[in-house]
């Protein structure tokens, strides 16, 4: 019970962090169809910007400025790079963002060094909010939950209250036509991409000091974000939200549930010894597999339900 409750909280926090990252990517990937490998880099930039800014004028301004900065960069990228590349197809776009990711990582290393920077949780939030069974729950985590909840709301409104979603989807196939119907396609694309990047930046501000702010943080976060978005289903914010929480919880609980297939078999009165074939596979404990569960799920869902959890169209 104790373990369950605490893990639930941990899972929730991690899941929400994932969501903060993924929400930006759903905009970019599932609306613009850009496999944006630089998304996690925006997350990293967000963190580093926040670190630098908070050194001078504190965390709260950083919370606003860093994402804006990222958004601006995003806009620039879209206007001067992505737009050109768009013509050459998705793989080109992907590689473009991939190149960006490399550059950003290097630039970050060159500006902030190879080793982690001391980006700390703001003193104002650095206190245990409450204690469950002797384990403290830091206020900062509650703050994270709050922010991500707000994000969800904001994006949801943005998508339902406006036709941006429609315009983009239409423009993917017949941009001229959408233009001829009186929509300023380029501006919409820029807006969406900038918004996506800004969201990633915000996630960085929040996640950077919760985890560690180091040049590898983008690389480590990259794949899992794709998993979340695709698993949740392209074009579905709710799907993305659910997927995030799911992944978060799964990974947290996997750690605390110390069982292996072998134990399961023992249940059925079959004991695994080092003699049994694949005993290595059978005896690996859940905590070790935890990290790869998301990918197992990803593969399974794509094979049997290519549109993901709640996707509106096939991946």
């Amino acid at each position, binding site marked *: 019970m104790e373990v369950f409750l605490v893990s639930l909280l941990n899972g929730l926090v991690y899941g929400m962090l994932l969501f903060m990252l993924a929400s930006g990517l759903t905009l970019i990937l599932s609306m613009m169809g850009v496999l944006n490998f630089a998304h996690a880099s925006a997350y990293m930039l967000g963190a580093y910007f926040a670190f630098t800014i908070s050194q001078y004028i504190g965390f709260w301004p950083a919370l606003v400025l860093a994402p804006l900065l990222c958004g601006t960069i995003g806009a620039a990228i879209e206007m001067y790079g992505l737009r050109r590349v768009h013509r050459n197809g998705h793989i080109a776009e992907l590689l473009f963002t991939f190149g960006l*990711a*490399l*550059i950003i990582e*290097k630039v970050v290393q060159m500006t902030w060094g190879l080793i982690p920077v001391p980006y700390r949780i703001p003193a104002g939030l650095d206190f245990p909010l409450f204690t469950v069974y002797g384990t403290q729950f830091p206020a900062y985590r509650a703050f994270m939950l709050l922010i991500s909840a707000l994000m969800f709301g904001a994006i949801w409104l943005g998508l339902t209250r406006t036709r941006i979603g429609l315009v983009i989807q239409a423009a993917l196939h017949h941009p001229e036509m959408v233009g001829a119907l009186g929509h300023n396609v380029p501006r919409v694309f820029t807006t969406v991409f900038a918004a996506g990047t800004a969201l990633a930046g915000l996630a960085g501000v929040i996640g950077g000091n919760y985890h560690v702010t180091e040049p590898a943080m983008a690389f480590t976060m990259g794949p899992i974000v794709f998993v979340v978005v695709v698993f949740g289903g392209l074009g579905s914010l709710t799907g993305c939200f659910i997927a995030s929480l799911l992944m978060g919880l799964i990974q947290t609980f996997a750690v605390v549930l110390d069982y292996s297939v072998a134990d399961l078999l023992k249940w059925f009165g079959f004991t695994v010894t080092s003699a049994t074939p694949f005993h*290595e596979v059978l005896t690996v404990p859940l905590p070790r597999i935890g990290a*790869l569960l998301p*990918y197992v799920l990803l593969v399974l869902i794509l*094979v049997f339900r290519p549109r993901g959890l709640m996707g509106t169209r096939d991946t």
Partner: protein
Amino acid sequence: MSADATQRAPQGRTLSAAPGSAGLARRAWPWLVAIVAALLLPWLFFDWSTHRHSGFALTMLSEIGLMAIFALSFNMQMGQAGLLSFGHAILFGLGGYCAAHTMNAVKAGAMWLPVELVPLVGGLGGLLFGVLFGYVATKQRATAFAMITMGLGELVAACALMFMGFFGGEGGISTDRVIGISLFGVSYSSSWQVYCLVVAWTAIAVLLMRLQTQTPLGRMANATRDNFERAQFVGYDPRMVRFCQFALSGFFAGIGGGLYAIVYEIVTFDTVAAAKSATALLAAYIGGAGGFFGPFLGTIVVVLLQSGVSLLSNAWLLYVGVLFIVMVMYAPGGLVGIIAQHAPIARAGRLRELIVPYVRILLPGAFSVFGFVLLVELASFTTIGAAQGKAFKIGPQAVDPATAFPWLLGAAALIGGGLWLRLEARGFRARWDALMADAKAKGVML
């Protein structure tokens, strides 16, 4: 080793003989030339004072060879079948692991196999796993396929760290290529011998892949890439096409992996990791996925960057990134694309008229590149290099990055070169258009 060199020639003959033996010679000689060239290249780095080959050069060339196989096999999926894989390295790596285990088994006397055939084992391993993963991945196409392969990639990479038995965890599986069994009585203790083996296998694999593109499967792969729905209505099961193509590319990737095991004598999880897969993608795209040999060219560039520049510069990844962006923005067709653009002019027989314009843009180009590199290096030195206590040199002579001079120099070269380049580019474009128009007129466009 010389045995390898000769043994492959008949290979080429029998296989490429199929389409009318008329142009056989014509078709065979570029291959022979390439092979001979490959075998001569290392001697450029030969150190006559110590009478030793440069181990580094040989490793790099070998790397190029095996990575080329890998990249080409990747392109069997991306270029030919339109299947973008983010997990191609798992086939390469698993092939490598199989090869490594085999060599250890042979060394332990558990089985008999000449070193020359070890890559084949890698290939079979790759094929096996190609069938396995292909069955899952090729259920879908497009983005779904890409994501599945990404998932599989991460899975295998994670497993590689988890299961000591087969993967040896973080330590990887190390092996010894000197197993004392050889078809040609070669020990393969020296990198040179190994290099010859690599050349041989590269030639074989590349040739086979080349021919595969001209088979019914190869063509239908193109067809399903272009319009998988239509393919169904001419009697083909697109999924089956994808599957076969995937499995075959697994075979070749595996050969690459097998060679890797021989060259490095250790196979670690990074051979299956995402970064390796990315390398293939880079190579394929930079070289140009459109033409068959594109990935080969791309591999040369990428490996030189990775193994060569990475030793010279901390910031090599940045150069890769920039190169990349420049390519996708200005030369989406990759290197072969650029070359292909010259074809009409060449056919019009006026290629040499481009030499002068090229030289003229090359100069400012070189300038701005130098400026850029200098600035990047200065920056990366002050933040990283200095920390590692290296000295900053331009050419032979050391400069102090703390002073303004080098920075100004860099900026000047970059900006000046850039502006100049702009100027020249205009002239170049004019010339180019003129020649193109002429080519059109001559009707040698397509």
